[in-house]
Protein backbone atom coordinates (compact mmCIF):
# COMPACT_ATOMS: atom_id res chain seq x y z
CA UNK A 1 0.00 0.00 0.00
CA UNK A 2 1.48 3.27 -1.04
CA UNK A 3 0.77 6.01 1.49
CA UNK A 4 2.34 9.45 1.32
CA UNK A 5 2.46 9.44 5.12
CA UNK A 6 2.49 6.08 6.95
CA UNK A 7 -0.46 7.13 9.07
CA UNK A 8 -4.07 6.03 8.88
CA UNK A 9 -7.14 7.17 10.76
CA UNK A 10 -8.49 4.13 12.62
CA UNK A 11 -11.87 2.78 11.65
CA UNK A 12 -14.88 4.06 13.52
CA UNK A 13 -13.03 6.73 15.40
CA UNK A 14 -13.15 9.05 12.44
CA UNK A 15 -16.69 8.14 11.36
CA UNK A 16 -17.37 8.94 7.70
CA UNK A 17 -14.71 11.55 7.11
CA UNK A 18 -15.81 14.10 9.71
CA UNK A 19 -12.28 14.71 10.99
CA UNK A 20 -11.17 15.98 7.59
CA UNK A 21 -12.64 19.25 8.82
CA UNK A 22 -10.21 19.36 11.74
CA UNK A 23 -7.09 17.60 10.47
CA UNK A 24 -5.14 18.74 7.43
CA UNK A 25 -5.86 16.00 4.85
CA UNK A 26 -2.31 16.14 3.55
CA UNK A 27 -1.21 14.62 6.87
CA UNK A 28 -3.33 11.54 6.45
CA UNK A 29 -1.98 8.55 4.55
CA UNK A 30 -5.41 6.96 4.47
CA UNK A 31 -8.71 7.48 6.22
CA UNK A 32 -10.48 4.33 7.32
CA UNK A 33 -14.25 4.66 7.30
CA UNK A 34 -16.49 3.36 10.07
CA UNK A 35 -17.14 -0.38 9.68
CA UNK A 36 -20.06 -1.08 7.35
CA UNK A 37 -21.96 -4.31 7.96
CA UNK A 38 -24.26 -6.31 5.72
CA UNK A 39 -27.36 -5.18 7.54
CA UNK A 40 -27.84 -1.75 9.05
CA UNK A 41 -27.28 -1.49 12.78
CA UNK A 42 -28.76 1.06 15.14
CA UNK A 43 -25.98 0.35 17.58
CA UNK A 44 -26.17 -0.19 21.32
CA UNK A 45 -28.45 1.69 23.66
CA UNK A 46 -26.98 4.75 25.42
CA UNK A 47 -24.84 5.42 27.42
CA UNK A 48 -22.11 4.54 24.94
CA UNK A 49 -18.98 6.21 26.23
CA UNK A 50 -16.94 6.65 29.33
CA UNK A 51 -13.50 8.20 29.42
CA UNK A 52 -10.68 8.78 31.87
CA UNK A 53 -7.35 10.40 31.24
CA UNK A 54 -5.88 7.00 30.37
CA UNK A 55 -8.56 5.37 28.31
CA UNK A 56 -11.92 5.46 26.59
CA UNK A 57 -14.45 2.66 26.76
CA UNK A 58 -16.97 2.70 23.96
CA UNK A 59 -20.07 0.70 23.33
CA UNK A 60 -21.16 2.05 19.96
CA UNK A 61 -22.13 -1.35 18.63
CA UNK A 62 -21.16 -0.74 15.01
CA UNK A 63 -23.95 1.73 14.35
CA UNK A 64 -24.02 2.03 10.56
CA UNK A 65 -26.51 2.27 7.72
CA UNK A 66 -25.70 -1.16 6.25
CA UNK A 67 -23.91 -1.89 3.02
CA UNK A 68 -26.83 -1.24 0.66
CA UNK A 69 -27.51 2.22 1.99
CA UNK A 70 -23.78 2.90 2.11
CA UNK A 71 -23.45 1.95 -1.55
CA UNK A 72 -26.41 4.10 -2.47
CA UNK A 73 -24.83 7.10 -0.77
CA UNK A 74 -21.50 6.31 -2.35
CA UNK A 75 -23.06 6.18 -5.81
CA UNK A 76 -25.03 9.35 -5.13
CA UNK A 77 -21.73 11.09 -4.56
CA UNK A 78 -22.30 11.79 -0.87
CA UNK A 79 -18.75 10.76 -0.03
CA UNK A 80 -17.06 12.32 -3.03
CA UNK A 81 -15.65 15.10 -0.90
CA UNK A 82 -13.73 12.52 1.15
CA UNK A 83 -12.16 10.87 -1.88
CA UNK A 84 -11.13 14.28 -3.16
CA UNK A 85 -9.15 14.90 -0.01
CA UNK A 86 -7.60 11.56 1.02
CA UNK A 87 -7.08 7.94 0.18
CA UNK A 88 -9.86 5.92 1.74
CA UNK A 89 -9.90 2.46 3.33
CA UNK A 90 -13.25 0.72 3.44
CA UNK A 91 -13.95 -1.26 6.60
CA UNK A 92 -16.42 -4.13 6.41
CA UNK A 93 -18.02 -6.45 8.94
CA UNK A 94 -20.82 -8.91 9.47
CA UNK A 95 -22.72 -10.88 12.05
CA UNK A 96 -21.41 -14.25 10.94
CA UNK A 97 -19.04 -15.77 8.43
CA UNK A 98 -21.69 -15.77 5.77
CA UNK A 99 -22.37 -12.08 6.11
CA UNK A 100 -18.69 -11.31 5.61
CA UNK A 101 -18.89 -13.17 2.33
CA UNK A 102 -22.06 -11.39 1.29
CA UNK A 103 -20.84 -7.93 2.19
CA UNK A 104 -17.71 -8.56 0.14
CA UNK A 105 -19.82 -9.58 -2.86
CA UNK A 106 -21.76 -6.34 -2.56
CA UNK A 107 -18.78 -4.04 -2.73
CA UNK A 108 -17.12 -5.80 -5.66
CA UNK A 109 -17.90 -3.17 -8.23
CA UNK A 110 -16.77 -0.21 -6.15
CA UNK A 111 -13.62 -1.72 -4.73
CA UNK A 112 -11.25 0.21 -6.96
CA UNK A 113 -12.33 3.43 -5.26
CA UNK A 114 -10.54 2.36 -2.10
CA UNK A 115 -6.84 2.09 -1.45
CA UNK A 116 -7.59 -1.00 0.65
CA UNK A 117 -10.46 -2.95 2.12
CA UNK A 118 -10.21 -3.81 5.80
CA UNK A 119 -12.30 -6.58 7.34
CA UNK A 120 -13.11 -6.01 10.97
CA UNK A 121 -12.72 -9.37 12.71
CA UNK A 122 -12.59 -7.88 16.14
CA UNK A 123 -15.36 -5.56 17.16
CA UNK A 124 -16.05 -6.38 20.79
CA UNK A 125 -19.32 -4.49 20.94
CA UNK A 126 -21.69 -6.70 18.98
CA UNK A 127 -23.26 -9.86 20.35
CA UNK A 128 -22.69 -11.91 17.25
CA UNK A 129 -20.00 -11.46 14.64
CA UNK A 130 -17.06 -9.19 15.21
CA UNK A 131 -14.95 -10.99 17.75
CA UNK A 132 -17.12 -14.08 17.54
CA UNK A 133 -15.91 -15.13 14.11
CA UNK A 134 -12.46 -16.01 15.37
CA UNK A 135 -13.75 -18.88 17.49
CA UNK A 136 -14.33 -21.14 14.53
CA UNK A 137 -10.85 -21.43 13.12
CA UNK A 138 -11.31 -23.77 10.21
CA UNK A 139 -14.32 -21.89 8.92
CA UNK A 140 -12.52 -18.61 9.48
CA UNK A 141 -9.62 -19.85 7.38
CA UNK A 142 -12.02 -20.92 4.65
CA UNK A 143 -13.65 -17.48 4.77
CA UNK A 144 -10.28 -15.77 4.38
CA UNK A 145 -9.78 -17.74 1.19
CA UNK A 146 -13.20 -16.84 -0.15
CA UNK A 147 -12.81 -13.14 0.59
CA UNK A 148 -9.43 -13.18 -1.10
CA UNK A 149 -11.00 -14.67 -4.22
CA UNK A 150 -13.97 -12.32 -4.17
CA UNK A 151 -11.99 -9.08 -4.06
CA UNK A 152 -8.99 -7.82 -5.96
CA UNK A 153 -8.24 -5.10 -3.41
CA UNK A 154 -5.38 -4.72 -1.00
CA UNK A 155 -6.98 -6.79 1.77
CA UNK A 156 -6.39 -6.00 5.42
CA UNK A 157 -7.71 -7.82 8.48
CA UNK A 158 -8.39 -5.83 11.64
CA UNK A 159 -7.46 -8.10 14.51
CA UNK A 160 -7.74 -7.90 18.27
CA UNK A 161 -5.78 -9.74 20.93
CA UNK A 162 -8.63 -11.83 22.26
CA UNK A 163 -9.85 -15.21 21.10
CA UNK A 164 -6.89 -16.05 18.92
CA UNK A 165 -3.21 -15.18 19.06
CA UNK A 166 -2.42 -12.33 16.71
CA UNK A 167 0.52 -14.20 15.26
CA UNK A 168 -1.64 -17.20 14.37
CA UNK A 169 -4.12 -14.94 12.67
CA UNK A 170 -1.29 -13.25 10.80
CA UNK A 171 0.03 -16.57 9.52
CA UNK A 172 -3.43 -17.51 8.30
CA UNK A 173 -3.72 -14.22 6.48
CA UNK A 174 -0.38 -14.66 4.82
CA UNK A 175 -1.22 -18.20 3.78
CA UNK A 176 -4.41 -16.99 2.18
CA UNK A 177 -2.87 -14.23 0.16
CA UNK A 178 -4.02 -11.28 2.23
CA UNK A 179 -1.99 -8.11 2.08
CA UNK A 180 -2.13 -6.55 5.48
CA UNK A 181 -3.12 -6.70 9.11
CA UNK A 182 -4.31 -3.89 11.32
CA UNK A 183 -3.48 -4.27 15.02
CA UNK A 184 -5.05 -3.92 17.54
CA UNK A 185 -8.74 -3.33 18.01
CA UNK A 186 -10.20 -2.34 21.36
CA UNK A 187 -10.10 -4.91 24.18
CA UNK A 188 -13.26 -5.90 25.98
CA UNK A 189 -13.52 -4.00 29.23
CA UNK A 190 -15.89 -3.21 32.04
CA UNK A 191 -16.10 -0.22 34.33
CA UNK A 192 -18.41 0.57 37.18
CA UNK A 193 -19.97 4.00 36.72
CA UNK A 194 -21.94 5.12 39.76
CA UNK A 195 -22.25 1.49 40.80
CA UNK A 196 -23.60 0.39 37.44
CA UNK A 197 -21.85 -1.86 34.96
CA UNK A 198 -20.64 -0.25 31.76
CA UNK A 199 -19.20 -2.61 29.14
CA UNK A 200 -17.39 -1.76 25.98
CA UNK A 201 -14.15 -1.75 24.09
CA UNK A 202 -11.06 -0.25 25.68
CA UNK A 203 -8.98 2.20 23.65
CA UNK A 204 -6.47 4.94 24.29
CA UNK A 205 -3.09 5.18 26.05
CA UNK A 206 -3.43 2.06 28.23
CA UNK A 207 -3.35 -0.12 25.12
CA UNK A 208 0.11 0.92 24.00
CA UNK A 209 2.32 -1.76 25.59
CA UNK A 210 -0.13 -4.47 24.56
CA UNK A 211 -0.45 -3.20 21.00
CA UNK A 212 3.30 -2.78 20.58
CA UNK A 213 3.77 -6.39 21.57
CA UNK A 214 1.10 -7.54 19.10
CA UNK A 215 2.88 -5.71 16.29
CA UNK A 216 6.18 -7.21 17.34
CA UNK A 217 4.86 -10.78 17.48
CA UNK A 218 3.17 -10.46 14.11
CA UNK A 219 6.27 -9.02 12.49
CA UNK A 220 8.28 -11.91 13.90
CA UNK A 221 6.23 -14.48 11.99
CA UNK A 222 5.41 -12.66 8.77
CA UNK A 223 7.47 -10.52 6.50
CA UNK A 224 4.98 -10.11 3.67
CA UNK A 225 2.06 -8.55 5.47
CA UNK A 226 1.71 -4.79 5.60
CA UNK A 227 1.32 -4.13 9.30
CA UNK A 228 -0.76 -1.17 10.44
CA UNK A 229 0.07 -0.73 14.10
CA UNK A 230 -2.02 1.19 16.57
CA UNK A 231 -3.65 1.19 19.94
CA UNK A 232 -2.97 4.00 22.33
CA UNK A 233 -0.79 6.16 20.10
CA UNK A 234 -0.78 9.62 21.68
CA UNK A 235 2.25 11.39 20.31
CA UNK A 236 5.18 11.35 17.93
CA UNK A 237 7.28 9.12 20.16
CA UNK A 238 4.54 6.49 20.39
CA UNK A 239 4.18 6.41 16.62
CA UNK A 240 7.91 5.95 16.19
CA UNK A 241 7.85 3.03 18.63
CA UNK A 242 5.23 1.24 16.57
CA UNK A 243 7.44 1.53 13.51
CA UNK A 244 10.41 0.29 15.56
CA UNK A 245 8.35 -2.69 16.71
CA UNK A 246 7.74 -3.63 13.10
CA UNK A 247 4.76 -1.68 11.79
CA UNK A 248 4.73 -0.32 8.23
CA UNK A 249 2.25 2.38 9.16
CA UNK A 250 0.55 3.57 12.32
CA UNK A 251 -3.11 4.09 13.01
CA UNK A 252 -4.41 6.83 15.24
CA UNK A 253 -7.72 6.51 17.01
CA UNK A 254 -8.76 7.85 20.38
CA UNK A 255 -6.10 10.55 20.44
CA UNK A 256 -7.97 12.39 17.71
CA UNK A 257 -10.69 13.06 20.27
CA UNK A 258 -8.27 14.66 22.65
CA UNK A 259 -6.63 16.83 20.07
CA UNK A 260 -7.03 16.52 16.29
CA UNK A 261 -3.92 18.66 15.80
CA UNK A 262 -1.76 15.93 17.34
CA UNK A 263 -2.42 13.88 14.23
CA UNK A 264 -0.69 16.57 12.21
CA UNK A 265 2.26 16.59 14.58
CA UNK A 266 2.57 12.81 14.38
CA UNK A 267 2.37 12.91 10.60
CA UNK A 268 5.03 15.59 10.47
CA UNK A 269 7.38 13.55 12.63
CA UNK A 270 6.79 10.45 10.50
CA UNK A 271 7.53 12.41 7.35
CA UNK A 272 10.75 13.74 8.84
CA UNK A 273 11.67 10.26 10.03
CA UNK A 274 11.41 8.99 6.48
CA UNK A 275 13.95 11.39 5.03
Amino acid at each position, binding site marked *: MDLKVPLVIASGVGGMG*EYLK*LVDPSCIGAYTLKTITLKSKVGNPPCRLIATKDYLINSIGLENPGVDEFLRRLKDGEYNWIFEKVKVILSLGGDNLDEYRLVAEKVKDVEEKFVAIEFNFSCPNVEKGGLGVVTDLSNLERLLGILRKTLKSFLIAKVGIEGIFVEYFAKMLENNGWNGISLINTIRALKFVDGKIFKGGLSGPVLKPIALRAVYEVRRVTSNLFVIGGGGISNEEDAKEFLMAGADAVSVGTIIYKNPKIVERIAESLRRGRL
Partner: protein
Amino acid sequence: MENFSLTKKEVEKISGNTYLIRFNEWIDFEPMQFVMVETPNSVVRKPFGLGSWQGDLALCVEILGEGTKYIVHEAVKLNVHGPCGNDFVPPNKNGLIIAAASCLAMAHEAFKRWDVEVLMCSREEFEMDVRPFRKIVGDESFLKTLRELKGYDWYLTLGSPQMCRIAYGILKTKGEVFTTMDSYMACGIGACRGCAIETKEGLKHVCIDGPIFRGDVVWI
Protein backbone atom coordinates in the same frame (compact mmCIF):
# COMPACT_ATOMS: atom_id res chain seq x y z
CA MET B 1 -15.86 23.77 12.11
CA GLU B 2 -12.36 24.66 13.12
CA ASN B 3 -9.70 24.23 15.79
CA PHE B 4 -9.30 27.22 18.08
CA SER B 5 -7.07 28.20 20.94
CA LEU B 6 -8.92 30.40 23.40
CA THR B 7 -7.17 32.52 26.01
CA LYS B 8 -9.01 33.45 29.14
CA LYS B 9 -9.76 37.11 29.68
CA GLU B 10 -11.76 36.98 32.88
CA VAL B 11 -13.44 34.47 35.16
CA GLU B 12 -16.40 35.53 37.32
CA LYS B 13 -18.50 33.50 39.67
CA ILE B 14 -22.15 33.40 38.66
CA SER B 15 -23.51 31.40 41.58
CA GLY B 16 -22.68 28.25 43.55
CA ASN B 17 -20.13 26.31 41.56
CA THR B 18 -20.78 28.01 38.27
CA TYR B 19 -18.48 30.48 36.56
CA LEU B 20 -18.58 32.75 33.55
CA ILE B 21 -15.39 32.74 31.49
CA ARG B 22 -14.79 35.44 28.89
CA PHE B 23 -12.16 35.05 26.20
CA ASN B 24 -9.92 37.31 24.18
CA GLU B 25 -10.83 35.59 20.92
CA TRP B 26 -14.13 35.37 19.11
CA ILE B 27 -15.69 32.38 17.35
CA ASP B 28 -18.58 32.87 14.93
CA PHE B 29 -21.50 30.75 16.03
CA GLU B 30 -25.25 30.54 16.14
CA PRO B 31 -27.11 30.41 19.47
CA MET B 32 -27.15 26.92 21.04
CA GLN B 33 -24.04 25.71 19.26
CA PHE B 34 -21.24 24.41 21.45
CA VAL B 35 -17.51 23.75 21.50
CA MET B 36 -15.55 20.66 22.52
CA VAL B 37 -12.89 21.57 25.09
CA GLU B 38 -9.70 19.61 25.74
CA THR B 39 -8.82 18.92 29.37
CA PRO B 40 -5.86 17.00 30.75
CA ASN B 41 -8.22 14.75 32.72
CA SER B 42 -9.79 12.96 29.80
CA VAL B 43 -8.86 11.41 26.47
CA VAL B 44 -11.98 13.01 25.03
CA ARG B 45 -13.01 16.63 24.85
CA LYS B 46 -16.03 17.92 26.71
CA PRO B 47 -18.92 19.96 25.37
CA PHE B 48 -19.77 23.49 26.51
CA GLY B 49 -22.38 25.81 25.06
CA LEU B 50 -21.13 28.90 23.23
CA GLY B 51 -22.33 32.25 24.36
CA SER B 52 -21.38 35.86 24.86
CA TRP B 53 -21.14 38.39 27.65
CA GLN B 54 -20.24 42.05 27.47
CA GLY B 55 -19.29 41.64 23.84
CA ASP B 56 -16.84 38.81 24.51
CA LEU B 57 -17.06 35.16 23.61
CA ALA B 58 -18.03 33.38 26.82
CA LEU B 59 -18.54 29.91 28.26
CA CYS B 60 -20.32 29.24 31.51
CA VAL B 61 -19.02 26.26 33.40
CA GLU B 62 -20.43 24.46 36.39
CA ILE B 63 -17.70 22.66 38.27
CA LEU B 64 -18.65 19.00 38.53
CA GLY B 65 -15.42 17.05 38.23
CA GLU B 66 -11.77 17.38 37.34
CA GLY B 67 -12.33 18.66 33.81
CA THR B 68 -14.57 21.56 34.73
CA LYS B 69 -12.32 22.40 37.67
CA TYR B 70 -9.37 22.59 35.32
CA ILE B 71 -11.25 24.82 32.89
CA VAL B 72 -12.34 27.27 35.56
CA HIS B 73 -9.37 27.37 37.89
CA GLU B 74 -6.27 26.14 36.11
CA ALA B 75 -6.36 26.61 32.37
CA VAL B 76 -4.89 29.71 30.78
CA LYS B 77 -5.47 28.63 27.21
CA LEU B 78 -8.10 26.18 25.99
CA ASN B 79 -7.87 23.98 22.91
CA VAL B 80 -11.35 23.68 21.45
CA HIS B 81 -13.07 22.83 18.23
CA GLY B 82 -16.39 24.04 17.01
CA PRO B 83 -18.89 25.43 16.54
CA CYS B 84 -20.63 22.07 16.94
CA GLY B 85 -24.29 21.21 16.75
CA ASN B 86 -27.19 22.93 15.06
CA ASP B 87 -28.32 26.43 15.59
CA PHE B 88 -31.83 26.51 16.95
CA VAL B 89 -34.38 28.42 14.94
CA PRO B 90 -37.04 29.54 17.40
CA PRO B 91 -40.69 29.65 16.36
CA ASN B 92 -41.55 33.05 15.10
CA LYS B 93 -43.63 33.78 18.16
CA ASN B 94 -43.52 34.94 21.72
CA GLY B 95 -41.02 32.77 23.65
CA LEU B 96 -39.19 32.42 26.93
CA ILE B 97 -35.79 30.94 27.76
CA ILE B 98 -35.44 29.30 31.17
CA ALA B 99 -31.73 28.95 31.80
CA ALA B 100 -29.53 27.56 34.54
CA ALA B 101 -26.55 29.63 35.64
CA SER B 102 -24.32 27.39 33.52
CA CYS B 103 -26.23 28.58 30.46
CA LEU B 104 -26.11 32.32 31.12
CA ALA B 105 -23.82 33.16 28.20
CA MET B 106 -25.77 30.92 25.83
CA ALA B 107 -29.02 32.54 26.87
CA HIS B 108 -27.48 35.96 26.54
CA GLU B 109 -26.48 35.46 22.93
CA ALA B 110 -29.93 34.05 22.11
CA PHE B 111 -31.50 37.06 23.82
CA LYS B 112 -29.45 39.39 21.67
CA ARG B 113 -30.29 37.66 18.43
CA TRP B 114 -33.85 36.62 18.97
CA ASP B 115 -35.24 39.35 21.12
CA VAL B 116 -36.56 36.79 23.60
CA GLU B 117 -37.15 36.96 27.35
CA VAL B 118 -34.79 35.09 29.70
CA LEU B 119 -35.40 33.71 33.17
CA MET B 120 -32.17 32.82 35.04
CA CYS B 121 -32.50 30.03 37.61
CA SER B 122 -30.12 28.92 40.31
CA ARG B 123 -30.26 26.89 43.49
CA GLU B 124 -27.81 29.33 45.12
CA GLU B 125 -27.89 33.13 45.25
CA PHE B 126 -26.44 34.89 42.23
CA GLU B 127 -23.09 36.48 42.99
CA MET B 128 -22.99 38.31 39.68
CA ASP B 129 -25.18 40.90 38.10
CA VAL B 130 -27.17 39.01 35.48
CA ARG B 131 -29.25 41.94 34.38
CA PRO B 132 -31.30 42.43 32.22
CA PHE B 133 -32.48 38.93 33.11
CA ARG B 134 -34.97 38.11 35.80
CA LYS B 135 -33.57 35.80 38.53
CA ILE B 136 -35.18 32.87 40.31
CA VAL B 137 -33.34 31.37 43.28
CA GLY B 138 -34.11 28.07 44.92
CA ASP B 139 -36.21 25.03 44.03
CA GLU B 140 -39.48 26.28 45.50
CA SER B 141 -39.31 29.56 43.74
CA PHE B 142 -38.39 27.80 40.51
CA LEU B 143 -41.43 25.52 40.67
CA LYS B 144 -43.75 28.31 41.72
CA THR B 145 -42.59 30.69 39.00
CA LEU B 146 -42.88 28.05 36.30
CA ARG B 147 -46.37 27.09 37.43
CA GLU B 148 -47.48 30.71 37.24
CA LEU B 149 -45.96 31.39 33.81
CA LYS B 150 -48.39 32.24 31.05
CA GLY B 151 -48.64 34.16 27.85
CA TYR B 152 -45.75 32.50 26.02
CA ASP B 153 -46.11 30.43 22.89
CA TRP B 154 -42.89 28.48 23.36
CA TYR B 155 -40.30 27.77 26.00
CA LEU B 156 -36.64 26.80 25.71
CA THR B 157 -35.07 25.18 28.77
CA LEU B 158 -31.29 25.28 29.12
CA GLY B 159 -29.72 23.39 32.02
CA SER B 160 -29.21 20.02 33.62
CA PRO B 161 -31.35 17.09 32.45
CA GLN B 162 -33.15 17.08 35.80
CA MET B 163 -34.00 20.76 35.65
CA CYS B 164 -35.18 20.56 32.04
CA ARG B 165 -37.20 17.42 32.74
CA ILE B 166 -39.03 19.06 35.63
CA ALA B 167 -39.62 22.23 33.67
CA TYR B 168 -41.05 20.20 30.81
CA GLY B 169 -43.53 18.55 33.14
CA ILE B 170 -44.86 21.92 34.18
CA LEU B 171 -44.71 23.71 30.85
CA LYS B 172 -45.82 21.11 28.33
CA THR B 173 -49.45 22.15 28.50
CA LYS B 174 -48.65 25.85 28.22
CA GLY B 175 -46.89 25.91 24.88
CA GLU B 176 -44.22 24.26 22.76
CA VAL B 177 -41.24 23.24 24.88
CA PHE B 178 -37.70 22.87 23.56
CA THR B 179 -34.83 21.61 25.64
CA THR B 180 -31.10 20.94 25.65
CA MET B 181 -30.21 17.27 25.89
CA ASP B 182 -27.20 15.94 27.71
CA SER B 183 -25.03 13.13 26.44
CA TYR B 184 -21.50 11.88 26.88
CA MET B 185 -19.52 12.97 23.84
CA ALA B 186 -16.21 12.08 22.28
CA CYS B 187 -16.11 13.98 19.00
CA GLY B 188 -18.97 16.47 18.94
CA ILE B 189 -19.07 16.28 15.16
CA GLY B 190 -20.96 13.12 14.26
CA ALA B 191 -17.97 10.81 13.89
CA CYS B 192 -17.97 8.62 16.99
CA ARG B 193 -21.69 7.90 17.34
CA GLY B 194 -21.26 8.04 21.07
CA CYS B 195 -23.78 10.75 21.92
CA ALA B 196 -26.87 8.72 21.01
CA ILE B 197 -30.03 9.28 23.04
CA GLU B 198 -33.31 7.45 22.87
CA THR B 199 -36.25 9.50 21.61
CA LYS B 200 -39.74 8.72 20.41
CA GLU B 201 -38.40 9.05 16.90
CA GLY B 202 -35.64 6.52 17.51
CA LEU B 203 -31.99 7.09 18.38
CA LYS B 204 -30.77 10.62 17.86
CA HIS B 205 -27.29 12.05 18.19
CA VAL B 206 -27.06 15.08 20.40
CA CYS B 207 -24.12 16.59 18.53
CA ILE B 208 -25.59 16.46 15.03
CA ASP B 209 -29.34 16.24 15.66
CA GLY B 210 -29.25 18.57 18.66
CA PRO B 211 -28.27 19.94 21.05
CA ILE B 212 -31.86 21.29 21.20
CA PHE B 213 -34.77 18.87 20.92
CA ARG B 214 -38.52 19.20 21.20
CA GLY B 215 -39.58 18.14 24.66
CA ASP B 216 -42.36 15.91 23.39
CA VAL B 217 -39.86 14.01 21.21
CA VAL B 218 -37.45 13.15 24.01
CA TRP B 219 -39.90 12.80 26.92
CA ILE B 220 -43.37 11.43 27.46
